[in-house]
């Protein structure tokens, strides 16, 4: 049985994260190379959209990631409030920029696709608007936590934003089912067979895996910087080999 609480201490999580992140970064590179190769060279053109559809290989995985990272932040927020662990707040803070990046990518690639396919860059339909709100929630989280000087209080305030905002995630996901939207329904879902060609699906899943690995690597890398910043008074930080210069 692993003693999870051991790793809740920044002093023991710091070296673990240091050992893990290069592996995830390497996996991200490998999956990304394979995914992009399938996306650009193997996957067939679409019968209706031609080559323009290839933006989904970035758009869909980025959108999934932006929603999932927010759920992970909400998870850490619950842990942080319940157990008063310092690391959970740091994990939240480490995840937020990556989540914001993916939300932005999702909106941006969607606009680039929307112009030629729909005939407009942007419409205020439920799917697009709720994703924009998610992007603003990430920015709001980052702004609020950086505005409070005391990191413990910043974490608590941030945790509340993460928990309140998580209501938006199911709204994004189900928006295309609940309302008439210009955005199409899901091509891939857990409940029905995917409505796209198999090679296209493979490209998309590989890209999704690449984005997962990238997110894990980046948040582990970033949490190490946050740990050093917040614990720089602690004795164990002074004893680190990278501090002996």
């Amino acid at each position, binding site marked *: 049985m692993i003693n999870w609480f051991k790793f809740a201490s920044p002093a023991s999580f710091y070296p673990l994260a240091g050992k893990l992140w290069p592996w995830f970064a390497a996996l991200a590179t490998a999956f990304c190379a394979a995914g992009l190769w399938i996306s650009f060279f193997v996957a067939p053109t679409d019968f*209706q959209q031609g080559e323009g559809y290839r933006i989904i290989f970035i758009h869909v995985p980025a959108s999934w990631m932006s929603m999932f990272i927010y759920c992970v932040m909400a998870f850490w927020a619950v842990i942080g409030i319940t157990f008063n662990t310092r690391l959970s707040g740091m994990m939240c803070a480490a995840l937020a920029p990556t989540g914001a990046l993916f939300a932005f990518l999702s909106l941006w690639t969607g606009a680039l696709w929307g112009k030629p396919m729909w005939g407009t860059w942007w419409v205020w339909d*439920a799917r697009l608007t709720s994703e924009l709100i998610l992007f603003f929630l990430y920015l709001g989280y980052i702004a609020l936590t950086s505005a409070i000087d005391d990191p413990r209080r910043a974490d608590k305030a941030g945790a509340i934003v993460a928990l309140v905002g998580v209501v938006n995630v199911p709204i994004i996901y189900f928006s295309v089912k609940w309302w*008439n939207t*210009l955005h199409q329904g899901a091509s891939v879902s857990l409940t029905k067979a995917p409505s796209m060609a198999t090679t296209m699906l493979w490209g998309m899943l590989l890209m999704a895996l690449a984005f997962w690995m990238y997110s894990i690597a980046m948040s582990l890398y970033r949490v190490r910087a946050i740990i050093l910043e917040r614990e720089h008074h602690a004795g164990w930080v002074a004893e680190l080999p990278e501090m002996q210069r």
Partner: protein
Amino acid sequence: MKPRQKRLAIVVGGVAAIGIAAALILNAFQSNLVFFFTPTQVASGEAPQGRAFRIGGLVKEGSLQRTDITARFVVTDTAKEIPVTYKGILPDLFSEGKGVVAQGSIGPDGLFTATEVLAKHDENYMPPEAQAAVDKAHEASRTLKQ
């Protein structure tokens, strides 16, 4: 109750309360969150009167007529139909039998004058050969039925 169980209960209760509040708000705004109205909804008078709104549906097969830059077509949801006129450039994905969303207003004669036409793409992605096979299969089932 231990303090941490109490905190967990507060978090769970808080999220549940926000969730219920959000559900109620969304339910109240239900009609305003609708991006477009279907021809059936328009026929039953659900669409707003006297101001611009959007209609959505399929472009009826064989209904598209172009004169100069004015396009006339029929939007259908297979139950009701609305004739639409539009002056301007249609998006690339616009074609008969495919989804469309048009913004504009409806005249007393029932003709919908669109100021903007957007193509609504569906969730199906496939190579051209697969589409040809699907069309063929449809054709075959149609001949079998006759």
